[in-house]
């Protein structure tokens, strides 16, 4: 059970949050100009990294804000959380 540092509320228990999958996948601005394959890439393809991964999280039972998280999936260490639209503080 993680302790997650919500960028808006501070440290809270994991039960207040839900994970929304991989972060930094931007919805294409002009979907109609994409081929089936390009659209499928956006729609379906996700990394599943053992190691440092960028994830979207929602403070569902709190401020209800979405934010991003850098988490090492091999040991669940959370390296950083940051607001949507901000650049990841870690590469």
């Amino acid at each position: 059970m993680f302790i997650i540092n919500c960028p808006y509320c501070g440290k809270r228990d994991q039960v207040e949050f839900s994970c929304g999958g991989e972060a930094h996948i931007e919805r294409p601005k002009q979907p109609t100009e994409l081929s089936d394959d390009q659209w499928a890439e956006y729609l379906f393809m996700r990394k599943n990294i053992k190691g440092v991964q960028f994830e979207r999280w929602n403070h569902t039972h709190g401020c209800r804000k979405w934010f991003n998280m850098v988490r090492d999936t091999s040991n669940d260490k959370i390296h950083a959380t940051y607001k949507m639209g901000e650049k990841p503080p870690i590469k």
Partner: protein
Amino acid sequence: MSNELRINKNNFIDQTVRISFKFNGKKLFGFKGDTLASALLANDIHLVGRSFKYHRPRGIMTCGSEEPNAIVQIGSDPASTEPNVRATEIELYEGLEAFSQNCWPSVNFDVGGINNLLSPILPAGFYYKTFMWPASFWEKYEFFIRYSAGLGKSPTKADDDLYDHQYAHCDALVIGGGISGVISAKLAAEKGLDTILIDDKNFLGGSTIYQDEESFKINNANSNQWLAREIESLKSYKNLVIKSRTSLAAFHGYNYLLAREALTDHLSVHERKNKIRQRLWKIRAQKVIIASGSIERPLIFNNNDRPGIILSSSIKKYIDYFGVKTGNNISLFTNNDSAYETAISLSKSGVNVNVIIDIRENSDSNIVKEAQKLGIKILWGHTIVETNGYKRIKSFEAMKLSSDGGNIVGNKIKFNSDCIGISGGWTPMVHLYTQSGGKLQFKSNDNIFIPDETKTPSEQISVGSCNGDFELDDVVNNTIYNVKKFISLDKSSYDKINVNCSKESSKKNIWLLPSDKPLHKTKPFLDFQNDSTAKDVKLALREGFKSIEHVKRYTTTGMGTDQGKLSNMHALGIIADTTGTNMGELGTTTFRPPYTPLTFGTIVGRNVGKFFDHTRKTAIHNWHVDNKAEFENVGQWKRPWYFPKNGETMHEAVQRESKAARESAGILDASTLGKIDIQGSDASEFLNRVYTNAWSKLAIGKCRYGLMLNEDGMVYDDGVTTRLAENHYIMTTTTGGAANVLSKLEDYLQTEWPELDVYLTTVTDQYSTISICGPNSKNIIKKIIPDLNLSDENFPHMSFKDSKIDGVDCRIMRISFTGEHSYEINIQSNYANDVWKACMDAGKEFNITPYGTETMHLLRAEKGFIITGQDTDGTLTPSDLQMDWIISKKKYDFIGKRSLYRSDTIREDRKQLVGLLTDDPKEVLEEGAQLVEDINKEPVEMLGHVTSSYYSPNLNKSIALAIVKSGKKMKGKKLIVPMEEKNINVTITDTVFYDKENKRLNA
């Protein structure tokens, strides 16, 4: 029977308080402080169960949670009986009833014992190999296996005990109340940390508390006396909480731990009444100090499983702590010094110690010398090759080990003994450390895995024997040093401590001890509970299994309720020896929570019955109850399903309600529909992006139906949205989809389109919705709101008016889910019940009929309106639903648009929504029934299935909706619905069955 094996020692057991109990129906007694196991042993009962596979007689083997054999069923009450309880852990209470498990018909005569004779054909993987094929034989095997090999009986009635959950936050959590835990807790308390010390026993002190020997001194006192004073001193710390009878179940990441506190399990049944039985503690600790200790290893030799063969340290605890002799003529078999402590304890208590068989060549440690001084005979460099005695050990044979330890030499020496204490060294309890994500390192001189302090995943430390310290001075000094460092404490009351103890001077380890017989003729048990032997492990290796995880599953070693606490190390050792691998490279199997089994009651706590989930009721709920509604659960909501009158069946009620709604007036509580208030200067643009149709041109005061897709193009939700003002809309969603739609919309707003000025607020609970439909709905609204102009010109279909009912603001929408002329009254929920009653009164002269979800579903099906989630399942596009009309051609983009012309979504042979009519109009199809074209051509191709099906009282025939492959092109085609008794002939039709011209909307 009496307690003739009880000696007169009163330190921990109160021999003035007798406690009677029953074991397998026999009346016995023990004393206050006993465990069931110690009380049984005091009554000279060793044989307590049968082994899982071979049904061999098995006796009490340990005194703790690692017990593999003494697993009993407690009680016979169908609600409270509990299987798989370790007799070594249960405290004796007045009226306790326990039964042996895994034996039939009785522990002394067991039919399954035949398996023991069959054992040459019951090797590792036997169950897999035999019962896999042929499949039809399984039924025959199953009966026998389940009857003869079950592990206890489940309760047959609901548990009526109370359980609880509680959170705790602390600076330091100390796990284990042995000597290192007590020292750690005191140090943490001295530092001023808010500290919790938990221990699974009802007393603190671990095994040191009865270590009363001259060879073990702390500050010149015997170690037990010193420790007793330390425990006493803990009581003075206000910042230290001690939780006994509390066992740690799980150690999760970020120092989140679960512990089970047993509150009433030690009390007699009548003392338990109305008390909480067990509590699950959810602990978040800044720092964790694990002092979980170690458990003694058995030795692996031929027939090492007979009743009366007990871990040496357990024999010591039974004599020193419980005052119980486990035999009258005891021998010990060891590879280390700790058995000598047992020998000395026994000897001092007047029990004859026959012989100590030690596989080592010699040892000159103090404790060995002390034993020799007491005249105890020691046979160095020997091993036990055979034991005798079926239901209780009677004698054994020992032989000299060859110099390399791999074989035996010389002649057999026979000894008579009614009990053998075995000690194969110690295994640190690293379960909790590894559960938390910690990695282990192998320490080869002791053959142990201990925490790798460079790979500790959180703020935690392991101290004492769980960290590989076994000598008293190491335990004390290292615990003090490491804990002080861990909590940054400079000075402590322990700074001048002086420990004097006997030190082990020689070590020897043989994982599988040799016998004079070839291996295949011996029974060296590894996992006593699951009956796997060293042979099985070797067989698995021969058959090609290499990974420890695979060997474990194939042989079932370590898969019992004891999780292999005794057997895992030996299994590893034998694999390493056989394959010539280093144990450290092999690694261990994964330790998973819980450390000891938890009751389901503890896991669920108070979340049972009506607390299992939230129940949501509309503001009009009580009226529905008063008017005898039958309810349906829709998500968390209770919705009226139908309102039976005068003993009507559901079918009769629904037929009546449906007719009334179309012939005069029906009224529905639609308050559960999700309602989202949307405001902001970009509200219209936002709706354009989330719905498939266009919204910018929707006039203020108008309503529009919208379909929402997932990005993959599949229909996700639907509902009517009304434009209340230039920048203000109210969206309705399906009842079940409300929460998900809101969070999906929030997601897009926050992450993809943060530039949009839009604000979403859920108002589902704030507004109640009353829907009145039917040709007389207008007359009823007219009576309630006389001022409102209801003409089609002023208030057309798909529009809304702000109004007042008895001075209360409300919104009236003219929208319809039934195809009838309809109104929806939206009103603040606290007035909803009164408004509903006013509607009922006004509608009385028109026979206004309340209807529930079933009639609602029927009426909309007559009109061919879909219900998302019933007619759709996340695999249908709008086009599949024959709803191409709702997809805007002009809009550049909306959620899911691009997916609507992927190669897969434009296939013509996708499953598509159609209507179905049965050839026999009285025949109502079953929802979910399959549709086929040709029943004779095998394999029969399934073309689709029925999604909605009703008998329509307004059409006087059966109607259905279905999704069918290439359905759009199949209008008029005959299909078959094959059912168990008959095949039903159907014809594919249009999806709209009633009022195809929509004339009734303005009727």
